[in-house]
Each structure stands twice: as C-alpha cells, then as structure tokens.
C-alpha cells in the first residue's frame, strides 16, 4: 500500500503485458491488486477495441478494494459500465439469471442466500432439520449432517418434506447461490442460448479477470472455461494454498486440474512477497504442503529485513488452549512497540482464539439475548466495514425474531418478500447498536445492560406473543460476551474473517484436535495433501508483516520448527 512509484518485478511485468489467458499463482502479499490495476491500465489505454473488462472475486471486501483502486487510478468511472466489478456470484446473477428468469417458472427470480437454513418439519412435533441436511439434487438426507443434528429414527418423511419444500421454493423463484450457479451454467451449456451469449459477452468484455480463484468450486471453474472457449481471454489469479471455502464446494484438486489446461507460457507465478519479513515469507512456504514448495517466496517489501524470528509457542497438549498464549503475544507486541488492537489472535474458530486470550467461553448459546450481546460487540470491535455490516444484519435479524416476524421463513426470504432494503432497517439497527454499546460507565453490570435491551426492544413484540423477558432471557455468558472485546487488547478473530487483510503481528493458534493432522500433511506423512485445516493456518500466518507467532501443542512444535528452519526461516521456540 505504499505510495512509492511502482516498479514491477520481472514476473509482474510479464503478467501486466500478457494479453491472452493466464493462470497466475500468487503467493501471499504478492501485490495482486497492484498488478491487476496495472494490467487494466495497460489493456485499457491506447487504441482499444472499446470493450470492457470483467473483474470478479469472491468476497465483497476484495471486490470493493479493487474497485476503489481502479477508480482512484482513473481507470473506471462510476458506475464502472461497460466494465463489470463484482463477486463471481453477482456476475452470474446479474447477467445470466435476473434478465432471463428461470426456465419453466413464471416467477421473477429472487436471491435467498440463506435458503438452506429453512426448517424442514414434516409434521407437528417432528424434529426440525435444516434444508441443508438434504442433497440438493436427490433430496436424500446427508448422513453426516443428520449425525451432527443428533437426528434419530426414520428420515423418510423429512426427505419427502424437504423435496417438496425445495420444489415449492423453486416454483416461487427463490434461489440461493448454488441454484443460481447451476442455472447459469445450464444456460451457458444450452446450445441455443450459448450461441447468443458467447458472442455477446465476448463482444462486451475483452478480458475476464477472476481474483481469489482458489475459492472456485467445480461449477465456477466450468463457467470460467466456458468464457475461455467462447473467445474471452481469462486471467485466473489465485493462491491454491489459500482455499479455505470448502463449504462453498471449493476443491483444490479441481483447481490443479484446471491449471493444467493452460500451456506453460500461460502459467505465470508471482512469488515476490511484499508484505512480510523474510523470516515470515519463508516460514509461510513451510506451511504449504510439500508438493507446493517448489517456488520459494522472496520477501521484497518494506519489512523484508525485519530481524524478529518466527515465534513458535509450544503449549501443553493436555488441558486445552491456555490463556498464557495471549499474555506471551502481548509481551512481544509491546516489546516491538505495536498496538495490540492491530494485532489479532486468529484461529479456525473464534472460540479457540478467545480461549488463547483468556476470554470466557461462549458455550455456543442460542439465546437471543446472548446473540444480541455478541452482535453489538462485533459491531463496535470489527476491523472493517464488512464485519460491521454483518453485525448490523445480525442485530436486525434479532429484532425481527423478537417481533416474531420471521415465522418459518429465513431472514433473506423475509427481506425479499417484504421488499425490505438495507436503508429501510439500517437506521434502527444502528440506533440499537449504539444504545447498547457496553461500557462500564454506562451499564455497571450485564444485568443492567439486559434491562436496557429489554426496554429498547419491548415495543417490537407482537400483539400476542409472550413477554420480553421470555424473548430476551438472562444468560450466564452475557457478561463475557459483552466484555469479549475489551479495549486495549488483542482481538480474537476467525481466520475466515481476516482473509485478504494484513497486520503488523499475528498469532495463529492450532488446537490439539487438528495440529497432528496438519503437521502430518505438511511433513508428507499423511496420504494426499488436501487438508483445509492446514490451509487455514497458512492463510492466518501469511497475514503477518513483522511478527508471526504460532501456538500449537508441544507434541507438534518440533516438527513445525524443523520444517520452517528447513526453508530458511529464523525460528524461536518457547515452551509455556
């Protein structure tokens, strides 16, 4: 993010000048955004063909960062038309679903992202299962998910109900992203439609840029391939080791196969790390599976000469994640003169990270009062706009639930059916978030906070729908939830929530449950190298600029140390 004049590396120069399709594997901190901006500058300047460029990514945060940069550089206008900048899903929705509707369905298609959260209950008093427990195509129950939902007995009735529910939702034009992708792909595959769309989209876009392509699932990759075959050069930019959206169906194996469809000259690496110190850059290579270590990243950025070695914290294998991790991390960041709030402790789950900081556990409670406390805290302690928006949405959802407005519908179904737009509810949700901001001066205790929350939300209650005390119960975890982000400390974050970001210092926490398998994968002991837990650690660790601390059970600490040293990183191991 420096304001220095940009001097591209040789690898970057090749990519900026490359006109055709390319598969670009970028290491963390490789300056992808900068390179995309420069590529756009090069392709849009000069006597062009008048066509636009489609920039696609998978998270709103990545999209808005790129859009900002392109706009500041004067490469696109507002609106960006004829260019397209958005998430992959919004691209499909806007250009391939919304204008054409769903074949055989008269209803206008509506996007219901949380469709899978719909309740399936074949008869009264039957156990409620979520729609996600049933296969999208066959409607058969998914064993694994039934087990997690503690379901016992015959699932036949549920399966029938789930099939009918899915059919009914489709007839009403209610689609989630997975439906949308499938319908979009079907449209592209259809010979008649494809014959129209191929020249139309090739006529509009001179290039299709897909960032964060490691998050593509097989359907996404097939869509990208379609564009490539239709004559639009595609630039696929990814770090295969950062694929942590397994729940979206992203699969690294497919991505590897996809990469193989590009000829050697079209496979272009970016291995210069402009973010981290040399120690961290090398240590991060060690966190990739052995097959992915052929190219060793080089630190090239302003922190390349940072002397602080990578810190491995070895904690006792028995007794869970100790709070001493947070204390040790604090000592080091203080020593380096870093601000604790800027340096998160990250883990696969928020709970692990919170444990490492000595924050009380949340126990996975579903009480509305507890969720409200978490949402309000999240709102006030999020790093970026995206997190605050999500927290506001959670507050709004709770307000609707207190008001008994959702019924059997999912949150997004409700929004869609009532035509509710963000600007309709955000002011109210913001007011609640502000009024319930927890500080010791305003509310001496969690009980006082709850009283205020009840007073505030009571007017939302439906005419005959119980009392506010029933809706917002006392919960023992409330105090902890409200204090979960004490000012002046390290924030506890999930790895997913820090994707794409960078921090001066990061502490990554592995649990006893996952550490051994992760190290097995990294040491090539385990068969295959498709381990999402390992990739999460890689994502978390690669956020760090100057200080990287990795906390893991003592049984695995040495294995990790030798891996990192083997790749030239300076490492210090500390026993707790």
């Amino acid at each position, binding site marked *: 993010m420096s304001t220095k004049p940009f001097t591209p590396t040789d690898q970057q120069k090749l990519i900026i000048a490359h006109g055709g399709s390319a598969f670009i594997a970028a290491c963390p901190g490789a300056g992808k955004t900068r390179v995309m901006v420069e590529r756009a500058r090069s392709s849009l300047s000069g006597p062009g*063909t008048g066509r636009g460029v489609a920039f696609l990514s998978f998270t709103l945060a990545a999209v808005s960062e790129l859009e900002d940069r392109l706009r500041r550089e004067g490469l696109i206008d507002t609106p960006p038309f004829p260019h397209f900048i958005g998430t992959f899903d919004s691209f499909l929705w*806007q250009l391939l679903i919304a204008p*054409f509707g769903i074949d055989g369905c008269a209803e*206008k298609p509506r996007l219901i992202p949380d469709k899978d959260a719909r309740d399936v209950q074949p008869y009264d008093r039957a156990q409620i299962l979520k729609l996600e427990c049933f296969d999208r195509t066959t409607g058969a129950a998914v064993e694994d998910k039934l087990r997690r939902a503690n379901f016992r007995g015959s699932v036949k009735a549920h399966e029938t109900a789930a099939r009918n529910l899915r059919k009914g939702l489709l007839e009403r034009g209610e689609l989630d992203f997975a439906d949308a992708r499938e319908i979009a792909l079907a*449209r592209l595959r259809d010979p008649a439609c494809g014959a129209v769309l191929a*020249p139309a989209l090739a006529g*509009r*876009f001179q290039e299709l840029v897909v960032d964060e392509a490691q998050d593509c699932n097989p359907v996404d990759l097939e869509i990208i391939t379609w564009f490539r075959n239709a004559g639009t050069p595609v630039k696929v930019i990814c770090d295969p080791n950062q694929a942590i959206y397994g729940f979206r169906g992203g699969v690294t194996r497919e991505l590897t196969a996809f990469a193989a469809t590009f000829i050697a000259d079209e496979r272009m690496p970016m291995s210069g790390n402009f973010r981290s110190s040399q120690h961290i850059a090398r240590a991060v290579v060690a966190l990739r599976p052995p097959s992915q270590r052929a190219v060793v990243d080089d630190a090239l950025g302003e922190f390349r000469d940072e002397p602080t070695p990578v810190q491995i914290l070895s904690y006792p294998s028995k007794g869970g994640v100790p709070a001493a991790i947070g204390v040790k991390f604090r000592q080091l960041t203080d020593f380096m003169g870093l601000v604790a709030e800027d340096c998160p402790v990250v883990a696969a789950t928020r709970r692990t990270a919170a444990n490492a900081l000595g924050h009380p556990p949340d126990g996975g409670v579903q009480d509305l009062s507890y969720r409200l406390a978490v949402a309000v805290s999240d709102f006030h302690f999020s790093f970026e706009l995206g997190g605050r928006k999500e927290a506001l949405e959670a507050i709004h959802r709770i307000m609707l639930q207190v008001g008994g407005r959702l019924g059997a519908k999912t949150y997004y179904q409700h929004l869609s059916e009532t035509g509710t737009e963000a600007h309709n509810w955000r002011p109210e949700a913001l007011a609640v978030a502000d009024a319930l901001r927890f500080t010791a001066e305003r509310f001496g205790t969690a009980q006082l906070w709850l009283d205020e929350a009840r007073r505030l939300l009571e007017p939302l209650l439906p005419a005959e729908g119980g009392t506010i005390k029933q809706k917002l119960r006392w919960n023992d975890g409330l105090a902890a939830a409200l204090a979960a982000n004490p000012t002046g400390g390290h924030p506890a974050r999930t790895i997913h929530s820090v994707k794409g970001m960078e921090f001066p210092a990061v502490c990554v926490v592995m649990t006893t449950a996952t550490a051994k398998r992760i190290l097995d994968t990294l040491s090539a002991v385990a068969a295959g190298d498709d381990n999402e837990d390992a990739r999460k650690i890689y994502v978390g660790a690669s956020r760090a600029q100057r200080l990287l601390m990795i906390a893991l059970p003592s049984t695995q600490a040495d294995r990790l140390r030798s891996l990192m040293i083997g790749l030239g990183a300076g490492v210090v191991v500390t026993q707790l």
Partner: protein
Amino acid sequence: MYLEKLGLQNFRSFEEAAIPLCKDLTILVGENNGGKSNAIDAIRLLTQPLGGRREIYCETTDIRFGSANRMFELSAAFTDLNPGQRGRLITAATDAAISGCVFGVKYDETTGRFPIRPQLWAGAQRGNPEPGCHESVRHVYLPPLRDAKRALASGNPTRIYALLNHFLEGGAPEEVAKALRRGADADILTKVGGAVEIGLSALTAGVRRQSASLGFANDEKLIDIARDLRFKLADHGIEPEDLRYSGHGYANLLYMATIAVELEKVNDADLTLFLVEEPEAHLHPQLQAAVLSFLDEQAAKSRLPREGHQGPTGELQIIVATHSPNLSAWVESRKLVFFRSHLPRPPVGVDTPGDEAPAEPLAGVPAEILPEIEPNPVIAAGRPRRVTRCIPLAALTLTDIERRKIDRYLDVTKSAFLFGGRVLLVEGIAEALLLPVIAKKIVLKDDVEKLRLFRSAVFVPIDGVDFEPYTKLLLTPYEEVRIADRLVVLTDGDGGDVQPGEETPGAGRKRRLTAAATALGAQDLLDVIVGDYSLESELVRAGNADIMKTAYLVLHQNSGPKWDTAVGQADAAQAVAIQKLFETTRKGDFAQVLADAINQGGAFMVPPYLKQAIEALVV
C-alpha cells in the same frame, strides 16, 4: 440497434399506445395538439440526453389529464442489436435470444411515498438494469429553434462559431453576432438576458479567429461533418454563403451547426436518438429537406461497421415531429406516423356518463402533491375524453402498387391530407380554388358553424382521377382509427363520349371507390359526388354562361365568338365543346378569375353536385 417501439400508458394525451418507429428516420405528422410533442417528450424521459444535462423530468402533470389512475408508464423497445450491444444491454434483454432490449419508466403516485421517484426498469423480467447500461442509448433534442441566442448559450459557442466560420469561409464575427442579436430581440426571451450574454460575448469579443480555427483544425470529425453538410446543401441548390443575406440565414446555419456539434458526440453511445421538433419553425422549406436528408444519410452512415471496433457503435436514429407538408412529402410513406386526437365511443356497459367522480380516486397519493392535482380534477370514468392515436402508415394494408403510387403522388400539396379530419379530394386546381368561394359566398353563407367546419377541411387536388390509393390510405382503419373522419371525392362524370345506357367513367370510379370503402367498413365516411361531364361544362349547364364568358374573355380577349359557339350547343354536344374550349385554357387561371368575380358578388348559380359535395363535407 434502433428504437423499434415506443409504449405509452396513461401519459399526457395517450391512454395506451404503441408507436412503431423506423430504423433511420421516422416522421411524426399530424394536426396541432395531436400528441406529437408528447411522444417526443416520452423518449426524452426514457433516455438520457447526450449532453448529460436533463431538461425534463417526470411530473404529476404528465399523468393523463383527469385520470383517476395516478400513474403513467413509458417503455422503449429496441431491436437489431449487434453482439457487443447484446452483451452491454443483457440486463434489459427481452428474451433468451437477446433479440431486443427494453427499458421502461414508471411514475406511480399511489405508492404513498414522497417524493415520487420514477422507477426505471429493464428487460422481460422488469428488473433493475445494470448501472450505466441505460446510458448506452442517448437522445439529442432539437427544439423548434425560436431563439438563436439561447441555442448559443447552451453547447459550446467556440465550436459552433468555428463551424459557422467554416461554412462561411470567414464571415466577420461581428456580423454574425449582430444578425443573431437582431433575431432574438423580437422574442419574449429577453428575460433570459444575463445568462445568455455569456454565450454571445464569446462570439463577439472573446473569441479570436485564430483560436477558433485552431480548435477546429484539431477536430477532424467535426470538419468531416461540416463537409458533408455543405455537400448536402449544395445538392439542394443552397450555398451557405448566400444564406447569410437572407432573413434568418444565420439562425438557420446556427441550427445546422448545433446539429453538427451534437453529431460529433454520438460515438460515445450505442444509439443516439435525434429528436427534431418542428424544424419548419425555423428552417426555410428548402433547408428542411436538405437538413433532414443530411441527417438521414448520417444515420445510414452511422450503421456502417467500423473495423476492429467493438465498443459503443455510435448509431443514429432520427425522429422528426412536424406539421410541415414539406417534410412528409419528402419521405416515403412507410416512414410516416400519423398522429391524431380521437374521441373514442363510450365503452359498452357504461350507461349514462355520470358527473360524479369515483369514490376515493386518489387513494394512496401523498398529501404533498394533492395541491398539484387539484387544478386537474379527476374526470369520471364514463365521460368521453380525447386520446392521441397513431397510425403508422407502414402498418396500413396497401398493395405494393398502391404504396408506390402514394409515394410518387405525395407532394407538398397532397401530403396536406395527412393532417387529417375532413378531406375533400378533387381532380384539379380549378375545383380547389372555386369550392371555398362557393361555400363561403353562397352555399354556407348563412351557417357559421358549418362554414367553420368547411374551413378546417383539407382540399387536395390530385391532378388526375386516380383516387383509389388515397381513399384507401385515408380510410383504412388502424386500431379503430382512420386518418380521415370524412372523405368527399368530387369527380367529373366525363360522360361526353359515352353512349346512352353505358356507365360513365365517373360513375365507374364512384362504384369502385364505394366498394373499396365498404371493404374497409368506411362506407358511411365516404361520399363520392360525380358530375355528368366536366367542371366547366357543369357550371355552364347550371346557368353561369354569362359570368363565365366575362372571365373567359379576361384570358382570351378575342375569343368571344368561339365561346358563344360552344355554349350555343345542347346537352352532350355542349359539354364536349366546352371541354374542348378549356383544353387550351389554363383551368387554374380561369378558376381564379371566376372566383374573384363570385367574391365580388357576381351572380352565380351553384351546380347541384357541387352543393352536394360542400354539404357532404360538413355533415
């Protein structure tokens, strides 16, 4: 691509209408208050102005006058998209094949929200268009240029000046400024004063010749347009250099310069709709055709593919609203859309039209805008109201031969019947000159109301007897509306050489015209009046030999005996002889002398068939 169909619902004078438009040029013709400007404004509301500065917005007064339904909706359907346009306008696609795209604007006061925001929708699903794609289609509005000063104030005066300079090959700027200032003084728009002076001062003092021509030299495209425009004027026998000496010469040139400057910008859009309203308000007749054929050519040119270019195509489509017969005469009939105000029959099932407004007609309308509606109270549903109806001449079922005839015959005089209503078709100029005088002085002299109707009628001498194509054009219904309300054909029997018992040529024409009208369901609207012989013979037979002889002698001083001989004969022989007499006389001149005589109160007997024709026209 081009705008194929404009849809209007409950908008100003329109109830529900779909106006088809042609690819390059469409001319909207019709009477005043026919709704032409409303159609033009609908396009202005549906598309963005090319210059980016919007001049009109949806307003409550755009809702059909007196309508209880407090909303209106407009839509523009485009077709003939190239692949790049399909890609850019995909969110407005009309079908899976993207064979077209559609944008709509809905203005609805019944949602209860205030202020009322017109909602833009796109495509078959009526969804949200992708931001920015709507601007692929732009419009340029050329209002009747009544004020040259004002036109200068908008746009870029330096460029316009440079263009004028090019036209005039170096006219003095002071002279241009002076001419324009004089033109504008007469106007009420002196109010605009201050703001306008800025534009004008750029022309007088601020601009130096060198800088102007420098700006021009850098601008290859603008100079190309200027060159084309110049050639076009030369084709029509107009020299721009001569124009400056005529009354409105500079303003005419300025108008064209404005067009050229706008044309230069069209490449930024996929389609630019050039909306030209009443070009006759300022351009002289000769220039009207020259300018429009120039625009038409530019439109055709804009559709030529550009090698290797896949961005906005810069296509052009021209839509002109006019009451000038010059323009309608100048294009083929397929490109004409006829506009008229129509009073529909009350719908079946509605008994007596009540004066009571329906209960709560304004439900949902925000209180803030009620004061604006009040001056136009809601009219009860049963009460008949005038609506604008359009007849695209291309949609009328005419055979190819008939259409070719119409296109050939439609000249400046004849295309007057496109202004509709009551139409009288006559064979030649003599009838057209005499009938108004006869009606005014004799037949309708005591009936003011009927005389008024008669005066509003259109007289068209067709220079022959081939009435059939016109009759079909005027009487063919299109969605229950016809161009003519009433059609009277006045023709000669030409019975001179016909054997007794045989059908005269005139009777034959009547039979065929009546059959044609019956086939169109318009037998009640048509009267074919046939004389026995020719006009002049009939006038003599009615007992006007004396007054006619005087008129005849004005033209042929020494032919008294010749006249007497012809008139002296009887019946058919007389008719033939008189007809022969007029073979060497200019009928128009004769009719004019005779009309003067009647005007001055000379004794004149109206032949019964002429009286019948006059009366039939004002029924």
